[in-house]
Every structure is written in structure tokens, then in C-alpha cells.
């Protein structure tokens, strides 16, 4: 999206940010002088502002929360859950979407119509509302969030794959493989699908960003990842009560969120330039 930069550079920047986050998520909580989940000297350490050195000589880059826990270490611990849930949610939704779209286009008839009608009906409910309904009905937690992201995110990918499969189906090389006697399932798997995944890959990459946003939104409302396990969403919710005295507690985790979603968007846009040319409107859905 940044016009002055060629797409190769945008890809490099986005990948750099994501790799740095993954390394940070793996290393920072392990190296922290105290367990980022443990509550220590609450009175002495709570709500320290960013860039403070406490009595024990520990440096707090982003300050501490209302229980005196280091915000940077917690933010990186939360990154593990948020990145994993976002990536897994989008990938699984994409896999379901590819399956449904490919089968619907390949088999056609009543199955196609039923799958598309179900997709349309689910698309007619804002994704957040659908997520809220599902999230509230089952026990909250990371597994539930991933399952719900999968159940509510496949429709867009299914439509894209269906359209691409319909386009590829009539190509001469598919005819040739059919004439050589390849069975129908092998035709779809080996010859049609690999050539019909361009826009799906773009949609799944962009989907990681919106899945992370939605996970954080659910966790913010208390319907997603539950404390003491930190996620960016529940950390922001946690800082909400202190917003008038110590705004950094709520705002710091949001910065990580913005940077991550930005990196996913950059990567998705760069991929779009290379792989597909479908419009932006699909990404307008499912905002948190």
C-alpha cells in the first residue's frame, strides 16, 4: 500500500516485523527477571510509568500494571496467544473455505446452491455479532476462539475459490488430463486447485490481521482468552479501569496489536499485487 516502496521491500518490512514479534514472544517472557504472570510487591510496583527503574533495579520499558507486573514482558507473553490464535484461526477458516468452495464448484447442483446459501446467510450477519453469539454459548478459551474464527471466516474464501475453480475448470490442460483418464478427485486436487488458490492465499494472509483483531475484541469483552493467561485484548480491558490515572496500561498492548495487524496488511497487499487482483471490499468486513 505504501506507494514509494516496491512490493519486495514491503514484504521484507512486514516479514521483519512479524519475525521480530515471534522472537520477542519466545524470548522476552523467558528472560524476564520475574514471572510476568506472578503478582509480587503490589503496593511498591503498581502502575509505574514507562521507562522506570524500580527499587530492585529492574527496568520497566512500558511500566507496570495495577498488580505491579511488567507490561512489556506481559505484552510479549500475550503475543504468543494472540499470534497463534490469529494465524490458526485464519488458516483453518481458509482451509474450510477452500474445501467448501472447491467442492461446491466441482460438484455443482444442489450441493453448490446449499453451500452458497449457507455462506450468504452467514455473511448477512456481521461477523462480530456471529462471533459474539458463538463465543457466549461455549466455554471461553483459546480453543473456542479458534473454532469460532474458523466457523465464521470461511465464507469469503469459499466464494473466491469457487469462482477461481469455475474459471480454471474449462482450461485446456484440465481437458487434457481428463482425456488421459485422470479420476475426478485427482483432477481437482492436482490440476485445478493449485491454479485456483491465488486470491485465497491473499484473503487468508489479510485474514490473519482481522482474526487477531477479532480475538482481541472478544477478549476485551471478556468472552475470549481468560486471565491469568494474558492476551492483548484482555490486557487492554485490564487497563481500562486505570485509564484516567495510568493510560499506558491500556494503551501499550494496543500498540503491539496495531503493529501486528499493519504487518499482516502490508504482507497481504504485497501478495495481492503478485497473485491476484480482487477488490478491497472483502477486507472491509469483520472489523473489531
Amino acid at each position: 500500500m505504501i506507494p514509494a516502496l516496491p512490493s519486495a521491500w514491503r514484504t521484507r518490512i512486514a516479514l521483519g516485523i512479524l519475525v521480530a514479534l515471534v522472537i520477542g514472544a519466545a524470548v522476552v517472557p523467558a528472560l524476564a527477571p520475574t514471572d510476568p504472570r506472578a503478582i509480587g510487591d503490589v503496593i511498591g510496583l503498581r502502575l509505574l510509568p514507562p521507562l522506570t527503574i524500580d527499587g530492585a533495579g529492574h527496568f520497566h520499558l512500558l511500566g507496570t500494571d495495577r498488580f505491579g507486573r511488567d507490561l512489556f514482558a506481559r505484552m510479549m507473553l500475550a503475543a504468543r496467544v494472540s499470534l497463534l490464535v490469529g494465524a490458526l484461526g485464519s488458516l483453518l477458516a481458509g482451509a474450510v473455505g477452500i474445501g467448501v468452495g472447491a467442492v461446491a464448484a466441482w460438484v455443482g447442483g444442489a450441493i453448490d446452491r446449499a453451500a452458497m446459501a449457507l455462506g450468504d446467510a452467514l455473511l448477512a450477519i456481521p461477523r462480530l455479532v456471529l462471533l459474539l453469539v458463538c463465543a457466549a454459548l461455549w466455554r471461553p478459551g483459546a480453543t473456542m476462539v479458534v473454532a469460532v474464527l474458523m466457523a465464521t471466516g470461511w465464507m469469503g474464501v469459499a466464494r473466491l475459490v469457487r469462482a477461481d475453480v469455475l474459471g480454471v475448470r474449462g482450461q485446456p490442460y484440465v481437458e487434457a488430463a481428463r482425456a488421459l483418464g485422470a479420476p475426478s478427485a485427482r483432477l481437482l486436487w492436482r490440476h485445478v486447485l493449485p491454479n485456483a488458490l491465488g486470491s485465497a492465499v491473499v484473503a487468508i494472509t489479510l485474514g490473519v490481521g482481522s482474526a487477531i483483531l477479532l480475538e482481541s475484541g472478544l477478549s476485551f469483552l471478556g468472552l475470549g482468552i481468560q486471565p491469568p493467561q494474558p492476551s492483548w485484548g484482555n490486557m487492554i480491558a485490564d487497563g481500562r479501569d486505570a485509564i484516567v490515572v495510568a493510560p499506558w496500561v491500556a494503551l501499550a498492548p494496543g500498540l503491539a496489536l496495531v503493529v501486528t495487524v499493519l504487518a499482516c496488511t502490508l504482507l497481504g497487499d504485497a501478495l495481492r499485487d503478485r497473485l491476484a487482483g480482487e477488490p478491497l471490499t472483502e477486507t472491509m468486513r469483520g472489523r473489531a
Partner: protein
Amino acid sequence: MRLLVRRVLDAVVLFWIVLTLTFVLLRAAPGDPAALLIAPTASAADAARERAELGLDRPLVVQYAHWAAGVLGGDLGESFAERRPVTALLARALPISLGLGAASLALTFIIGIAVGMAQAARRGTRTDTALTVLTTSVYAAPSYWLALALVAVFTYGAARWAFPGWLRLPAFGVRDPAGSAAGGGALADVTRHAILPVLTLAAIGAAGIARYTRSIVADLLGMEFVRTARAKGASRRAVYARHVLANALPPLVVLFALALPGVLAGSVFVETVFAWPGMGRLMVDAIRARDYPVVMGATAVYAALVIAANLAGDLLLPVLDPRRRS
């Protein structure tokens, strides 16, 4: 005309599928709403009586038929938790969310189109790059975080940097609890309370629209008819107004319809942060209390708005774009 009837019928069928889907989803889920309504010390018999009173002990098909008959008669049932008609709760919450949504959507498009066109006209310059970085970042921000950032600025920041009186905007609620002003005073009060929530929703929406407008207008500026118009001596302004905007408008109108669900979803968080008793708050509270009739009613309203908006977009497109008339 036949096309119109067909589209409307399709929309009605789609709406009914959505409602049925929600019904099945809610009843298939584990968890007993009756258990949340009775005292923890109540006996099993009490729980059974409560379930019978709510109609939850009847077969699913009977519940569906009963509910469907009610919906067709304009009756969405009674809230489990508040023991009041769902329609009354929705009628109280909907105007608040619609007002918030309409104001935000209007601002979203005014700001978004202006920024996007300005960027397209200065394609490749530093201003363009700076605005792209800004819009992409704002678009990546969750609405509740942006809302909290504004709250921080107008509470913590207002105290710390001694904001002047006129800039001390209220950060919570719809109206001043101490103020008993009526008429013009009340309207001004609500408007002041609405500034921060509307700004939050409009900022994110405008960022998305600006990105989209920039890419459409940039494509149009490279078209031959634009070059022809410039070559025959039309002024820059005339080219933008008569040739570029006229061609950019139809996709933007469709996007207006598609943006509605985003604004509604955003209002769930914004209403939560700013303590506005709208649809979003109603939905979240009802979900926490397993208040099925209210969840169903709110979902139905959301779905109806989305389907109506899509229908309006579909039907408006041929009006705005002669090429789509067939």
C-alpha cells in the same frame, strides 16, 4: 420491475434463513438460561418450573413453530432477564445506535473521499506516502483501543495539560446526569457526549474509505477519457467533478452499503467503552445473561440492516451507473 421483485424476495428468504440459523445455533448450545434466573439454592423442581414458564421444556420443533408464528406477527418474545417485550428493549436501544452509526457513516464518507482524492491527485509525493501510512495504521487499530486512547486524552490528558473549558469533552455516557436541561440544551448536551464516540468510528471508517477511494481515483486518472478531457481544455476542477467523481461514485455507493456492518460492529465496542445504552451494549449484556430472545431479536435487527443495505446497494447501482442498466 421483475428484477426488483426477485431481489426483494431473495432478501426476504435470506433473512428467514438467518433467523432460523440463529434459532438453531442458540438452542443447540450448551448452558441453561433458567439456571441463571433462579436462586442458587433453588431446587430441581424450581428449575423445571422456570424452564416450563419460559417454554424451554417443549420439543425444539414446537419452540420453533411458536417463535416463528410470533415473529410473523411482529412479536419477538419476552426478555428472560428483564421480563419485558424484546421489541420494547430494541426500540429503546436502536435509535441510539442508529444515530451514532448515521453520524459516523456520514463523516466517514466525507473525510474518506476527500482524503482519498487528495492522495490520488498527489500520487507518489511525500504527502501521499504520509497519508497512506496514517490511514493504514488507523485502519489497523481496534475501535475500542482508539476509543480508550481518546478517553485517555480527554481525562488524563485534559487534567495534565490543563485543557481549556470548551475542549473538556465528556468521555462517558449519553447525557450529563446532573443536567436537567430540556429542548435545545438537551440536544447540545447529547451532541457534546457524541463527539468522541462518533470520532472513533469515523476515523477508522474514513481510513478504510480513503484507501479504497485512492486506488479507484488513481486508476481513473490514468484513463484515456480523463486525458481527452484535459486535452480539450477542461479545467482541473471540471475534470475531477464531472469525469473522475462521476465514475468513482457508483462503487463508493455500494461500499457505503457494505460499510454499514462494519460501523455496527464497531459500535458494539464503542458503546461498551463510552457507556452508551445502544444495540451493542444490549447484545453483549444479553449474551452474558443467556437472554435468548434478546440475542435473537438483536441479531435479527443487525441482519435486517445488512440485508437491506446490500439490497439498496444492488438497486442503486443501475441508477448511478448507466452501464449497469440492462
